């Protein structure tokens, strides 16, 4: 008999916290959902991300599997879309990067030489900057909540996260603040923006650095299992 399971909540998380997650959680029970435990002790199986789709690229010619990079103000999410996600694939093929997108995605863990988390989008929609702004606000709030929870440290998942990761809370506080400041910039008067251009350039470099971190040979993996519905 199948067990009725509640739909998993789509968590709000910045790339910087997401990409550091390496720990997979799964009950012994068959077909139980897979979660990743993030450094701040969030258990997540599904996420909702709003950011800039920077790239889409077919992993191999005619493989039907597309690799995407989606950037929020703190870093880049990596994702793969294949034929098991027809809804996401259909919209992805119509979108030309760079474009602001909202993505509902399952979280997947690749365990190779090193463990990596990535997104397996369920759907992808083009959105406007006000959606992105609100997402940053929401995600900042959620992250601050997790930081506070981590400081208290009595939650079981936080206790586990403390054992697994070495966490510098200031790193996350700074990332949240940085994200909020980039949103603030869009409210700044035009003449003030010019002065800040330099700063923006350095930020782009940072993003490129992060990109490098993700270079690896997907050709050697068989992603098909990870992309299937569970």
């Amino acid at each position: 008999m199948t067990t009725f399971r509640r739909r998993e909540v789509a968590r709000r998380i910045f790339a910087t916290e997401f990409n550091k997650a390496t720990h997979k959680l799964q009950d012994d029970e068959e077909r139980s959902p897979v979660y990743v435990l993030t450094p701040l002790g969030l258990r997540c199986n599904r996420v909702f991300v709003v950011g800039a789709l920077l790239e889409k690229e077919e992993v191999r010619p005619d493989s039907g599997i597309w690799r995407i990079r989606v950037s929020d103000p703190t870093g880049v999410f990596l994702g793969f879309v294949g034929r098991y996600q027809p809804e996401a694939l259909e919209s992805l093929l119509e979108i030309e990067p760079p474009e602001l997108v909202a993505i509902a995605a399952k979280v997947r863990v690749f365990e190779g030489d090193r463990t990596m988390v990535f997104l397996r989008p369920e759907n992808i929609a083009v959105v406007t900057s006000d959606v992105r702004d609100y997402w940053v606000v929401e995600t900042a709030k959620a992250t601050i909540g997790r930081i506070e929870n981590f400081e208290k440290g009595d939650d079981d998942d936080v206790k586990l996260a403390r054992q697994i990761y070495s966490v510098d809370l200031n790193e996350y506080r700074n990332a949240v603040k940085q994200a909020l400041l980039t949103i603030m910039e869009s409210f700044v008067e035009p003449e003030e923006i010019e002065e800040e251009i330099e700063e923006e350039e350095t930020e782009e470099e940072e993003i490129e650095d992060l990109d490098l971190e993700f270079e690896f040979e997907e050709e050697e993996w068989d992603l098909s299992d990870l992309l299937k519905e569970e």
Partner: protein
Amino acid sequence: MIEERIKELTQQIVQRFKDSGYDVNAKEVEKRLKLLILEFKVPESEAKRTITNYLLKELDIPRESLITESELVKVADITKPNQWVSLKVKVVQLWDSNSPSISQVGLVGDETGTIKFVIWAKADKDPVEEGKCYLFKNVVTDSFAGRMQINVNKNSEISEIDEEITLPPREIEVVGALISIQQNSGLIRRCKTCNRVMSKGVCPIHGKVEGYDDLRIKGVIDDGENVYEVVLNEQNIKNLTGIGLKEAKEIAEEFLDRTAVLAELKKRLLGKYFKLVGDRGERYLIVKNIEFLRIDVKKEVEKLINSLEA
């Protein structure tokens, strides 16, 4: 009255031992119950426990071998079928049943949510009433069409309780993102007889029948903490997008494809934030009012930056 209650309690104790494979003397149990309850004014539950303990000792039965009374749980805790549970609930709604094997069917709830219940005719229970609160003891959880329910059988007990149970407010306000729109949304056809949604001209109940057009969205609103399955009707959709039934039909004609309506609605609504007010049903949040979220982001950002600097 009290004599009857004592007979009932006697029966419960005897039954519990019997279910566990032991025969106990009903007369003896009744005598002891009378002594404790009538003479010594011991509360029922204490009297029951005391006598159960006495019998265990007397018959030299290990406590583990006695079937435990099922755990008292909340509605929201029920996620697996085939579990014996007990719960304190209010009867929210009684539904019509035309099945002779079912005595009553409807919805019960507590402060954590609502769940469907079925009282089988074979269970032979006194009927429950809408709006009253009961202890449902030793009922079995079950899943039907993907939803949980509880079944009352002959080993179950239902007793009215003198407690007020408050249900979660039916009307709630939600701010969240529309993260999924189901395929059976958009321009749909409903059966003229029963209003059910038809698939390829076929009603699940009435087969191939005439239908009529309707516009709706079934989707998921997610606020990062909770998930709400929502249903938007034609009016909701028209308020948000300007696309009503008439416009939807025009789109379908223009593209010679009814699914073009769904594609257009997804383009306009998916991945966006909404503020909505709706009534919580058994499964879906029935939307009364929905609008695109408008919020002073600058103020929110400033507040958050200040909180980080504090």
